[in-house]
């Protein structure tokens, strides 16, 4: 698997810390929804730094959409969220990861559980579902600190037949929200048609602590561990 030269062709601020970067990557063969890529930056003296980022949009073209959330004090993400601008070049290798993937031919129900920027691979799945015109029922549960931290909220909230969305606010809820801020609970993950008996495919992505808590709730609800795919970031 080789590195491809990638040119930034667009950037879009999504939240105070998260930004979408669109890259043009000649030779990139496309990706499945849920996959990620390695991104490599090279300093003038040849020093290189590489990090993995989820793709926000899958597809079969040479365009790569990343959403990067800034890690405070990080080495690579602050460059991508603040400094990178159209025309800048990085390198991309991928797509990577054949397991945390939704196949658009799979008609079964899908339960997606996102903590913070863990929603990014799920954006790729939602977009692929929409593009394919597939009837697979989706339920997306998004846990965010506050409304300001919600990535692509407008797109996620756009009515889409067969898609259910639940937002969970952990620190600050929007004005008029019917519940005080709280952490994810089992009730958020329980919905008709998305239970263990429905042969539901479950994906959970987010910071390690969030995914641990979500996976414990999910297996407690009876979802077989083998049907719960996880992707974690950060330490424990």
């Amino acid at each position, binding site marked *: 698997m080789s*590195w491809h030269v990638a040119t930034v062709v667009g950037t879009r601020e999504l939240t105070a810390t998260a930004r979408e970067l669109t890259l043009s990557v000649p030779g990139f063969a496309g990706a499945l929804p849920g996959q990620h890529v390695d991104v490599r930056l090279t300093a003038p003296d040849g*020093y290189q730094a590489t990090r993995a980022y989820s793709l926000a949009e899958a597809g079969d073209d040479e365009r790569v959409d990343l959403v990067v959330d800034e890690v405070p004090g990080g080495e690579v993400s602050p460059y991508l969220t603040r400094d990178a601008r159209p025309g800048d070049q990085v390198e991309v290798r991928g797509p990577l990861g054949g397991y945390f993937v939704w196949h658009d031919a799979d008609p079964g129900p899908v339960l997606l559980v996102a903590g913070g920027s863990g929603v990014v691979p799920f954006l790729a799945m939602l977009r692929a579902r929409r593009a394919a015109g597939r009837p697979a029922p989706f339920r997306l549960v998004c846990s965010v600190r506050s409304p300001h931290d919600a990535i692509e909220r407008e797109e996620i909230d756009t009515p889409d037949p067969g898609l259910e969305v639940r937002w969970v606010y952990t620190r600050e809820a929007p004005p008029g929200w019917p519940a005080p801020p709280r952490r994810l609970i089992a009730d958020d993950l329980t919905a008709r048609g998305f239970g263990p008996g429905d042969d539901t495919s479950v994906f959970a992505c987010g910071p390690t602590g969030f995914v641990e808590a979500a996976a414990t709730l999910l297996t407690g609800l009876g979802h077989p561990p083998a049907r719960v795919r996880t992707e974690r970031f950060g330490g424990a």
Partner: protein
Amino acid sequence: MGVVTRGFGGRRPEPEHEIPPGQFVTDDFPVLSAGPTPDVDESRWELTVRTETGEGTSWTWEQLMALPAEDVETDIHCVTHWTKLGTTWRGVSLDTLLADVETGAEFVMARSYGGYTTNLPLEDLLDGQAWVAYEFEGEPLEAVHGGPARLLVPHLYFWKSAKWLRGLDLMDDEDLGFWEQNGYHAYGDPWLEQRYA
């Protein structure tokens, strides 16, 4: 050298400490697991080594604790690019566990509670290169990091160090484990950057 990224300075690792290509040093201990963390109680924990002829040898938790333990200080390298320096572990050497196992096999499939698998050459588990580790930094190994006991094979990428270890199957022929079937390298030497198949 690839293209230069305008405006990227980057940080340099501590110059005295060499790390494998493409890695960066973190003080965190990130968690990468394909599924939920299994809840494995020590009272029902068991480790089984099965030879290519099907003969099995098993240890309970008490039996593992009764074996001579070693303290290990090592750097660990994850395929997702982080390296953690100077980690300390305590566990039982595979040389000890495999001392009385009769085998002509060349390959091993490590199996975990929860269903994870990873393949390794047997020779990479011998001669002081691998342990069944149950303490990290002086504390019992947390479940999220593979407790009660995980394989520790620090000279390979860390996905080879199977969490929640329950068995080692010795095999005549190489078979691929979980990540190895999902696009990762069959061997995984970090110094040769053997990340992907």
